[in-house]
Every structure is written in C-alpha cells, then in structure tokens.
C-alpha cells in the first residue's frame, strides 16, 4: 500500500481499491433511457400478450392508453438503442478469443475465469447480448410499425399485419429473454452494476473479468 491518496492516471484511479472508469455520463444516461423504455415496453406489451397479464395495463392508465403509448415508447427505445449501438458496436466485433471463451461454458458458468483467455472490454456473452438485442430491436421496430394501425394501418395488408403481430410477439419474447440474461449477469457478477450507476468498476473487477481491457488502459498512460 503506498499510503498516498487516490491519484488519477487517465481512466485508472489509484487507491484502495483501484477504480476504473467504464462508462461516461453520456453512455450511462443513454443506457438508462433505453433501459427504462425497455422495461415499460415489456410491461405494456406483456399486458396485451396474455390475458393473465392484462392487469399490467392499469400501470399505463388502462388498455386504451397502453395501446396508445406502447409504440411511442418503442420509438424512444429505438433511438436510445441506436445511440448505444453507435457507441459500442466496434467494441462488440467478434474476435478469435471470443470463440475460445465460448467453448468453455463450464468455466464461465462456474466462475472459473482464470482458465479462460484474457478478455477485452466485452466478453463473448456480452457481445452476443449486444448483437441479439440489436437484431431483435430491428425486427421489433419493423413489425411494430406494421401493426401501428393509427398511423400506418393503410400501408399494410391484413396478411402482412398478421405476420407482423406474430413476429412481434416472438421477437419480444426473445428480447425479454436476452434482457433476463443481461440483468442476471449484472447481478451474478458482483461489482458490475456500479459501471452503469457511477460509471466506475474496481480494479479487481476489471482484472478478474476484463484483464486485457485493464492492461490496455494502464499501458495507455
């Protein structure tokens, strides 16, 4: 222990523990707008998906308001996610280590990361969540517009709308499952959530889960 107070060198802040900047304020705000809209979309969408969940529509002022508001929240999500996509797509490009990482599911699931290759900003699981969400959100916005009768009703045939409602439901289930994985991973891997709340993680977290990323940050300065 050096005994000196926290000092800063780039995005790695010395101290006990070391703190590492992971997300800027802009990225965090972008994330939480997207996250909030995704939760609201899931609640309003599920209320119209299964009768047993129709009670959720009262959160939005009843069935009619749920029907009115859901597509608008969808637009917010789309724009929000587009922002996230533009920020992070490069960091989520696939590389050789990702394949290797994915081939050891046992080590991943039991938390034995020492046997896995060192990981950059994102591991293969995070990248899969990113790309699956990207794909599903494109499917959801396209099918969603096809079933947004209020404004686009006259542009689509009834058959196209039938395809749209089915695709929208299936894609939404997929997106909710991807979201469950995303949330669960954030809870299971302790120390993750502060990345999106205060923007920082501890050095140990970075060392354990994203060592290549940490090494790059340290050598940069």
């Amino acid at each position, binding site marked *: 222990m050096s005994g000196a107070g926290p000092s800063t060198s780039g995005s790695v802040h010395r101290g006990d523990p070391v703190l590492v900047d992971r997300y800027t304020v802009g990225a965090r705000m972008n994330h939480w707008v997207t996250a909030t809209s995704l939760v609201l979309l899931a609640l309003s969408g599920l209320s*119209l998906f299964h009768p047993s969940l129709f009670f959720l529509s009262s959160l939005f002022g009843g069935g009619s308001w749920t029907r009115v508001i859901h597509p608008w929240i969808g637009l917010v999500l789309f724009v929000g996610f587009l922002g996230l996509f533009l920020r992070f797509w490069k960091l989520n490009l696939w590389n050789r280590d990702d394949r290797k990482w994915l081939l050891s599911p046992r080590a991943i699931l039991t938390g034995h990361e020492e046997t896995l290759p060192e990981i950059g900003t994102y591991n293969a699981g995070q990248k899969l969540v990113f790309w699956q969400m990207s794909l599903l959100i494109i499917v959801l916005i396209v099918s969603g517009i096809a079933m947004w009768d209020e404004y686009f009703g006259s542009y689509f045939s009834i*058959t196209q709308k*039938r395809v749209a409602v089915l695709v929208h*439901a299936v894609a939404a289930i997929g997106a909710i499952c991807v979201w469950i994985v995303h949330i669960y991973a954030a809870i*299971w891997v302790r120390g993750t959530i502060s990345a999106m709340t205060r923007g920082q993680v*501890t050095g140990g977290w970075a060392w354990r889960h994203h060592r290549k990323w940490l090494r790059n940050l340290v050598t940069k300065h």
Partner: protein
Amino acid sequence: MYPPLPNPSVSPVAAKLSDKNLMRRSASTIPQGEPVQQVAKLIDTSKCIGCKACQTACLEWNNLKEEVGFNTGSLTNPHDLTTASWTLMRFTEWVNPETDNLEWLIRKDGCMHCADPGCLKACPAPGAIVQYTNGIVDFVKENCIGCGYCVKGCPFNIPRISKAEGKAYKCTLCSDRVAVGQGPACAKACPTQAIVFGPKEDMKKHAEARIKDLKSRGYKNAGLYDPPGVGGTHVMYVLHHADKPEIYAGLPNNPTISPLVEVWKGAVKYAGLAVMGAAAAIGVVHHLVNGPNRVSREEEEAAKRLAEGETK
C-alpha cells in the same frame, strides 16, 4: 315464404340476453352461459334487389351517420364497410362463362357471426368481444381498447376501427333487438324477404327450399353458405353459385382463422410465458447453485500492482 318478423309488442319485455348467456368472452375464462335458441340471419342473394333498405335501416336503428361519399362508378356506396356502415351491399357485374349472360350479383356484406370467431380469439382486452349462446358475436365498446387485433383475427375483414374514438365497430346482429324478441333492423326493412331471421335450424330449412327452387330454375350450383371452417356462421347466404363464392365481391371460399393468428394466440402465448419464466428460473437456480461471482482480495491487489506499474 318465411313468415315476416312480427311487429314489436307495445308492452315492456324483459331482455332475454345478458351476461348470463355468454358462451365466450375475450381474454377471459368463463363458465358456459345459459343456453338460448341459436339464431341466424339468412341472406338470399337471389332475392336481393339492391335497394339498400337494409343499409338505411342499420344506420337508422343504430343511430349511425355515414359521411357523404363520392361516386367511383359503382353502386356500392360507401366503397367499403366503415365504422358507421356495419352492413354494405356489394355489387358485382359478373359474366357467366357458361351462358355468356351478365349477372348482377348483390351481396349484403357484414359480420358473419362465426361460431368460432377469429376476432374474439385475437382480442387481448377482457370482455371487449363476447359471444352469446344464441350465436351472436358482439363488441362491448366500454372494454374495447382499439388495438385492431380483431381485424387481424377476422377471416372476413369486417371490423373497422374508429380513429376518432379508438374503438372497433361491426354489425351486432341487432343483439339489442334480438334480446327482446325482435329481429335485426335490416331483416325487418327488407322488402323482398331476401333477409330473413329466425332459429338457425329453421333458416337452414328455409334455405333448402330456396335452393331447390333455384335449382329448378337452372342454377345447378345453388347452395347454402355456412362455412364449416369457422364452425358455421350465424349469418348465412343462399348463393346461386355456391361453388364459387369468391365471385360475390370476394366472399372467401373456405374461410378459416388464419394459421398465423392460431399460432400467435395459441402456441406462442403459452410457450412465450413458459420460455420467459424458464429463463428467469434458470437464473435463480444458477445463483443458488454457484453463488455470486465475486472479486477476490487478491484480484484487487493484482489490479493495484498493475495500476502502480509494479507488474505488466
């Protein structure tokens, strides 16, 4: 001739249709309601003269106001069903290839009141669509959320959504009149008895006699339109060319609820909840089995050494 509908009684009559007589209720599970005699409206296209008294009677009884339209060279007016026009005479000029005669086919379009209603199957709002045990499928405005799922569910393209109100509208088979022993307004107004109304079995018998008569006049393919793909309907047609219903302004040949809707409101509805529940459950079990993935003290120390440049 089927006996004309009687004039209403002037003394008050208790309503015979209520929530006690529901067979199905959208997005709800309900006990089987008390049975009422199955009714049907029979529309005999061979007797229709295209006078539109039925359209007028429908507007009048239901207090609907259709907008003044425009002419595009067809007597069909308005050009499609609307939130105000729950029934519409569709006119088709058809040249019979066998006789080379021009035939003027007039079909009164509107809700068919399917025994297996696709609109009700698709509806997500509890109680927005109900089916009475007499066969009438009715929309309940207060519960309707205007999502338009009924439009996707309907094999006949009948429901219309009001942009102003955000509610779905269609023919009610005059459930309010039927409830007090009357027939639908359109049937009451029809001057040629092309529209008759009564118990479904009687209507089928009446149709049989009409078909026999049509066959004796050379319409060898005359028949009853009561499509089994939707479990039969409570609005039926006598067609002179029952072998090709599509010539009557696109009356579907073998209507069924679209398989897309069946999958959406069947397998996907249940499998979807199961898959999402399973994903969450797997997370809980995984956490219980493996415990949290924590950073150790040594890892914090290693990071510190790295940050302070002691190791690379």
